[in-house]
């Protein structure tokens, strides 16, 4: 995999985009396109490499057309481009998912009307990739949240994710059997509220 330019190289290329030099766009794209696409594919090996290439193109096109959208004081250029490309990739996947679902539901209606057979929804490869990517995104999100939780809160989160958020289960897992029933109830409510609030603040779905 060819390497992304260093931070200094990237900044020099970006500064040229802010000048009148018409060759700056070409040099910028030549330096970033292949390594950015390869980096995305390395991060998301289950995705079609063409999707990664097009997401890298989207990110570069946006930046070369509006170079002031990047502020070097706020983020490193490589990180900015990767973030932008991941955003474009997610948009593409969302559009593709909607398209595939529309096609799939149309197909299912057609099959149903013609044959009357029971309908078993089978995922197309692209839908499988999208679900894989969504699951991966959720895993990464939970992992990030988990790192900000205390050990007790992590146990609580695991139980909530498994659908085991009852007081008795939490009390047993957290070793609070010595507390009075009223105190157990209070502590369980507090820890559940804290975990839910942290997930919500981080932008996660309600548990």
């Amino acid at each position: 995999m060819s390497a992304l330019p260093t931070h200094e190289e990237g900044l020099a290329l970006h500064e040229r985009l802010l000048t009148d030099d018409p060759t700056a766009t070409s040099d910028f794209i030549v330096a970033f396109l292949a390594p950015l696409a390869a980096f995305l594919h390395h991060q998301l090996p289950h995705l079609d490499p063409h999707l990664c290439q097009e997401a890298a193109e989207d990110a570069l096109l946006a930046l070369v057309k509006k170079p002031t959208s990047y502020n070097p004081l706020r983020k490193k250029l490589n990180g900015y481009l990767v973030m932008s490309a991941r955003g474009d990739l997610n948009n593409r996947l969302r559009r593709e998912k909607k398209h595939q679902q529309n096609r799939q539901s149309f197909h299912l209606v057609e099959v149903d009307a013609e044959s009357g057979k029971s309908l078993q929804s089978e995922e197309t490869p692209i839908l499988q990739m999208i679900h894989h990517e969504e699951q991966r995104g959720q895993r990464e999100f939970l992992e990030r949240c988990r790192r900000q939780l205390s050990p007790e809160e992590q146990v609580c989160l695991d139980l909530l994710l498994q659908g085991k958020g009852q007081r008795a289960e939490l009390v047993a897992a957290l070793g609070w059997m010595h507390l009075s029933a009223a105190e157990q109830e209070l502590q369980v409510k507090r820890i559940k509220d804290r975990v839910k609030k942290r997930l919500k603040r981080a932008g996660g779905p309600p548990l």
Partner: protein
Amino acid sequence: MSPLEHMARRVANDPFFLGAILHCYAESEQLTPAALANYLGCSVETLPQVQLCRAPRAEAGAFTHDIELIANRFHLDTERLMEVVRHGQALQRLRAASSAAAGSLLAARDRPPPPDSPPGETP
């Protein structure tokens, strides 16, 4: 197809890029990418890099400056590049004008006749 070729093709109709002007010219002259590269004086491998340059600015002084910068950077024939770009830009303007005219014609056709017009007569 290399990633650069793919991206150069993608911007072939984007007026921000020189590639759109070169595309207009090549289409009108029925040139393949290899023939266009040969005419400009570069290899076909270098052509995508030329296509991904920003289109030269329109003002007279800036236009010449931009053309020279691009030609020097990729060792192109400056006179040829200038000729190709002027030709390509003229074609772009023609296309823009004809599509605008087609749009006006359609809009005029869709416009309802004035109340005192005889039936079947359009303004």
